[in-house]
């Protein structure tokens, strides 16, 4: 039986989902708005009682409609970082951070708690009220508050959705550090592939209240069928390792999927593991090897599969040891006469480097 099995029906919406949480890993709950992500989070946190189902978190069943188990939220020890943060406006940053910590039976020692506060860069803000903080600082307080209660699992409900790109870039490294340095299983809800590409090990893709696909992030992102019914833009996430740096040009060579790619200088030293993301819209296809082109990365590939929808076509490419997805227009598809099995060259306009290792 899966860790989470939920059936819930409300006017105009039916949730029927089941998936596993994979121990101490980051599982991304990914899907467009209205797919049922928030309902799942609320049910796991104990804030919504599903019609039927079973929820097992870190080995303990917190809800089971069959045997009548429903642990109240305060006894579940599941930390939640809400999309709207829900900081207590009348309490200082410090009182907010330690609200759960003070009430937790199995809380981390005070020194560890202080380290988390330090790690989140909040040590200087403890006496302030949440409403005088910046958006990014508030997000960090919400994250810290959920962490300090010593949760068995952490639910992050679109933690970056309300932030602009600059604030997002400010928070992501903190999240990555938390993922690296704690062993708390996390369920990360998002409809932004870039966040998931950087953080998640495992993806559960939801659409219309159902699990459409589930699997390791590197497998799921290169599949074509997943994104068909959604408004999401596909993009492939790949593990990579650093080969060497070219200090003169400010570049690094990395190996991903058996091919060498040139990317802007990365922080990791040679041999270091990184993660890259190549968005489907950043890959052009060419029938001949383009030498006179500004893109640094042109890879020989075979077309594995094609899926057409609307004005565009998603083309799955087999490149050495990896699969990539390219999104082109259907007009281009016809003009080039592309079909499965055909050799092409993938002109990669941009590679996003970042996120957790491996």
């Amino acid at each position, binding site marked *: 039986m899966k860790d989470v099995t939920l059936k819930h029906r409300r006017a105009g919406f039916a949730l029927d989902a089941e998936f596993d949480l994979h121990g101490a890993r980051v599982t991304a709950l990914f899907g467009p708005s209205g797919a049922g992500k928030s309902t799942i989070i609320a049910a796991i946190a104990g804030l919504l009682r599903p019609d039927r189902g079973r929820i097992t978190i870190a080995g303990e069943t917190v809800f089971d409609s069959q045997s009548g188990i429903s642990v109240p939220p305060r006894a579940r020890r599941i930390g939640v970082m*809400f999309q709207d943060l*829900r900081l*207590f406006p*009348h309490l200082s940053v410090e009182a907010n951070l330690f609200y*759960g910590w003070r009430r937790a039976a199995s809380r981390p020692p005070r020194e560890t708690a202080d380290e988390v506060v330090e790690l989140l860069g909040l040590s200087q803000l403890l006496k302030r009220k949440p409403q005088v903080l910046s958006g990014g600082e508030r997000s960090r307080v919400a994250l810290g508050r959920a962490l300090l209660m010593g949760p068995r699992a952490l639910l992050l409900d679109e933690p970056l959705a309300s932030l602009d790109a600059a604030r997002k870039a400010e928070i992501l490294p903190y999240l990555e550090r938390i993922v690296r340095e704690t062993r708390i299983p996390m369920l990360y809800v998002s409809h932004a592939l870039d966040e998931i590409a950087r953080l998640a090990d495992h993806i559960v893709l939801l659409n219309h209240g159902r699990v459409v696909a589930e699997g390791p992030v590197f497998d799921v992102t290169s599949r074509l069928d997943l994104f068909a019914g959604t408004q999401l833009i596909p993009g492939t996430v790949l593990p990579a390792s650093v080969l060497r740096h070219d200090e003169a040009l400010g570049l690094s060579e990395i190996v991903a999927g058996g091919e060498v790619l040139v990317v802007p200088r990365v922080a990791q030293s040679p041999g270091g593991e990184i993660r890259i993301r190549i968005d489907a819209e950043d890959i052009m296809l060419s029938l001949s090897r383009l030498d006179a082109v500004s893109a640094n990365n042109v890879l020989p590939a075979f077309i594995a599969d094609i899926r057409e929808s609307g004005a565009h076509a998603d083309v799955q490419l087999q490149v050495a040891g990896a699969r990539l997805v390219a999104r082109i227009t259907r007009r281009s598809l016809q003009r080039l006469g592309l079909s499965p099995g055909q050799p092409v060259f993938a002109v990669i306009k941009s590679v996003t480097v970042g996120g957790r290792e491996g």
Partner: protein
Amino acid sequence: MGGILTAAEWQALLLSLRVALAAVVFDLPFAFAAALLLARCRFPGKWLVDGFIHLPLVLPPVALGYLLLISLGTRAPLGAFLLANFGIRFVFSWTGAALASAILTFPFQVRAIRLSLESQEAGLSEAAGTLGAGPLDRLFTLHLPLAAPGILAGVITAFAACLGEFGAIITFVSNIPGETRTIPLAIYTAIQSPGGETAAARLAAISILLALAGLVLADTAGRRARASIGR
């Protein structure tokens, strides 16, 4: 005490303040409980409870004073019982004036506190729940402090209303200088006595100044309370 005010004026002023303060403080815990009941609970007959709590708003104060007199007078069963067993006497005493004021201004406190409880986001309570706080815990660490502006508004409105109370006091506890003669009663007495127009005018001026001071205080305190909860 001398200066600008006469001894009788001081007496009336201090008595008014004492009666209003006692009434407001006495009311507060009950008003909070009633507001919590109305804001958070659903039960059959709620409309009846709601109506009963608001009854003093529409009840003629003189009628209330009469009801209090016939139930708490020293010869009435309840009044006699309180006097014999606890030594509590309301009639012809400032405590009776405070009790009448407390009943009449109870709805003001309940309404203001109820509004501030109802405007609290349910999400905060949910968040506190996931952080391990039970219902009572949340009441004291979340709902009560967040209701502070409402409590303050209710208390100040009720206090101001107490200062103006007349009918119930004069009916229930009479018009005794130094004991039950608050400012409104003193104004009434001055008007009734020949040549008392100046005294009445002075007392009316005191009332107005008191009301103005109350408004300023309410505004400052309200702004501070709202700032403390980030509104």
